[in-house]
C-alpha cells in the first residue's frame, strides 16, 4: 500500500514539473510589445474577474444566506455578500441534520451514485472489452450499441418498460436503467482498443481468462477513460431528480437529496406565509442547497483535469 502511494506521489510530482516546464516554455515563445500590451493584459484580467464573479456569486449568495440570521434575512433586499445579522447562524444546518428525511435522502443519493457508477463501470469495462476485440461480429455489435444514440423510445415507452419490470417504486429503477449509455461504452471501447495487443496475447497464452484480461491487463492501462466515464456518471446520478420524480414519486423514503431540495425550495414559499414561522426553517432551503452542491464543487479541482482530458479525447459533455 505504502509503496503504491509513494509511487503515485512521485508520478504526480513528475507531472507537475513537466507541466511547469511546459508553461514556462510557452511564456517565452510569444513576444509581448510595450505598454499597449500591458494594458490589454490588465483588461483581460479584469474581464476574467467579472466572468468568475458572475459564475460564483449566485452560489456565494446562497452560502452566505445559509449562515445568516433568518429574521434579518427576510428584511434584506438584493445580494447577500456577507452574512446578514449580527453573528453566524447555523440553525438551518442544524435543522437539516435533525431531519431524518433529508438524512435518508442523502444516504439514498450516495447509494444511487455509488451503485449506479459501479454498475456502470462494470458494464462499460465488459462491453468496451468485447467491442474492442477483433471478432467477426464486432461491427454488428458496435452498430447495435451506436444505434441507441440516434433513436430512442422517449419518456413514456421507457417508463412503461420499467414499470413492466416491476422496478417502479423501488431503488433499482434509479440505479440500473441509467447506469451507462452508448456514448460511455464507445469511449471505453476506443481507449481499450488503443492498448497494445501483445499484452493481451501474452496474458492469454499464460492462460488468463477474459475477465482476468479485461480487469487485470487492459483496465490498468486504460483506466483514464474509464475514470472519466465514472466521474461523469457519478455527477449525473448525484444531480438527477427527474427519474426519481417519476419512478418513486410517492415513496419518500427512496427520494434522493435533489428531490428533497426541490420539495423544500418549492414549499418554502408557502412556509413563509405561516403565522409563526421558525426562521431557521426558512434557512433550511439554503442549507439544503449547500449540502447538495458543495461536495461536488469542493471535489471539482481534484477531478477537473481528468474531465478536461476526457472531453478533448472523446468530446464528452458532462
Amino acid at each position: 500500500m505504502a509503496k503504491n502511494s509513494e509511487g503515485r506521489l512521485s508520478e504526480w510530482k513528475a507531472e507537475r514539473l513537466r507541466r511547469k516546464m511546459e508553461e514556462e516554455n510557452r511564456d517565452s515563445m510569444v513576444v509581448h510589445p510595450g505598454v499597449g500590451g500591458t494594458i490589454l493584459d490588465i483588461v483581460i484580467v479584469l474581464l476574467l474577474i467579472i466572468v468568475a464573479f458572475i459564475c460564483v456569486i449566485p452560489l456565494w449568495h446562497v452560502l452566505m444566506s445559509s449562515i445568516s440570521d433568518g429574521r434579518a434575512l427576510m428584511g434584506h433586499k438584493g445580494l447577500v455578500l456577507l452574512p446578514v445579522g449580527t453573528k453566524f447562524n447555523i440553525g438551518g444546518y442544524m435543522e437539516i441534520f435533525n431531519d431524518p428525511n433529508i438524512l435518508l435522502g442523502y444516504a439514498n443519493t450516495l447509494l444511487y451514485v455509488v451503485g449506479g457508477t459501479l454498475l456502470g463501470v462494470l458494464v462499460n469495462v465488459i462491453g468496451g472489452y468485447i467491442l474492442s476485440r477483433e471478432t467477426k461480429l464486432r461491427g454488428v455489435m458496435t452498430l447495435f450499441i451506436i444505434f441507441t444514440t440516434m433513436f430512442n423510445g422517449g419518456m413514456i415507452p421507457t417508463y412503461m418498460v420499467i414499470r413492466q419490470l416491476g422496478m417502479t417504486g423501488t431503488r433499482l429503477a434509479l440505479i440500473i436503467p441509467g447506469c451507462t449509455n452508448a456514448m460511455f461504452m464507445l469511449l471505453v471501447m476506443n481507449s481499450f482498443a488503443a492498448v497494445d495487443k501483445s499484452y493481451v496475447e501474452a496474458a492469454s497464452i499464460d492462460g488468463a481468462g477474459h475477465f482476468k484480461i479485461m480487469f487485470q491487463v487492459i483496465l490498468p492501462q486504460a483506466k483514464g477513460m474509464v475514470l472519466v466515464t465514472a466521474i461523469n456518471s457519478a455527477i449525473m446520478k448525484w444531480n438527477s431528480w427527474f427519474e426519481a420524480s417519476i419512478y418513486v414519486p410517492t415513496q419518500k423514503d427512496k427520494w434522493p437529496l435533489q428531490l428533497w431540495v426541490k420539495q423544500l425550495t418549492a414549499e418554502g414559499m408557502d412556509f413563509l406565509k405561516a403565522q409563526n414561522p421558525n426562521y431557521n426553517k426558512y434557512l433550511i432551503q439554503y442549507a439544503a442547497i449547500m449540502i447538495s452542491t458543495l461536495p461536488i464543487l469542493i471535489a471539482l479541482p481534484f477531478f477537473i483535469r481528468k474531465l478536461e482530458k476526457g472531453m478533448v479525447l472523446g468530446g464528452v459533455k458532462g
Partner: protein
Amino acid sequence: MARKKKNVSPYKDAKTWKKDFKKNGVIYLIFLPIAAYFIIFNYIPMVGILMAFENYKPTKGLFGSKWVGWANFAKLFGGKEFPRAFRNTAIMAVMSIALGFLPPIILAILFSECKPKKFKRVTQIMSYMPNFVSAVVVCAIVTEFVSKDGPITHFLMLFGMKQQNLLASKVEPVFKLIYCLIGVWVGFGYGSIIYTTAISNVNGELKEAAALDGANRFQRIWHIVLPSIKHLVIMQLTMAVGTMFMVGFDKVLLLYIPKTYEVSDVLYTYTYRMAFGNKIDYGVSTASSLFQSILGTVLLITSNQLSRRFASYSLF
C-alpha cells in the same frame, strides 16, 4: 503479432464463421447480458412508440389497445396546446444558440491570452462550477433571484423596470430569456474547455513569427487563432443546431407555472404533462415525443448535410 491477426480477419465462408465462433464464442456469450441491457432499456421502448398510433390503455397493454392510426397526431395539431408548445420550443432553441454559442469561444480566447497562469487556472475552475450545479438547485436559485425581492429584479429596477416576479411575467421574451440565460450561465465556462485546448494546440512558432512580423494581439487572434479553430467551431455549431430540440428542457419543468404556459410551455413539458399530469393520455403524449424526436433527427441530418456541403465538414 497483432498485425498478423488483422490479415486473417476478412473471412468469407461458413467455415470461417465456425472458426470464429469456436475462437470467440465466449466473447459473444459475455456480450449477451450487455445486449440484454440495451434491448430492455433502449430497443423495447422503441417498439413502445406504437403507442403513438393507439388509444393506449395500460390495462389492455401495447398489443391489446385500439389502433387509431394518425388520430393522436390530428388531436395534437388540432389542439391549442401543442402548436403553442412547438412554437415556444423552436424560439427557445434558436435563442439558446444565438445567446449561448459565442460566449464559450470568447471566453476561451480570453483564457488563452491571459498571462498570470495561476490566476487563469483559478478563474477557469470557477467558470466551470455552474455546470456541476444540479438543475434543481440552479432553478431554485434563479427563482429566488428573479422573484419580487430578488437581486436581479432589484438590479433591473434601477433601470426603471417595475417590481415584479419575472418568472410570472407573461410578456413574450421574459421567460424565454431567463431560460436561455440560465443555459449560458451553466454552460459557457465548461463549454470553453474544448476551445481552450484547441487554441493551446495552435502552433507556437506561427504566433511567434507573426509577433516578430509586427502583428498585434488582435491581428494574431484574427489571422492565426480563429482560422485554426474554424473546423471545431463549425463542428460545434453543427452539433448545437442538430441537437437543439433534444437537450436540456427539464429546467422549464422546474421553472414554469400554469399562469405562464402561454409563453413557457415546451414540447418536453407538454409530453410530460400528458403522461404524468392531471389529464393523462399516453397515446397523445407518445405522439408528441415521437414528433419531437423525428424533428430532432431530421434537423441533425440536415445540419450535418449543410455543414458537409458548405464547410466540407461532417459529423457522420
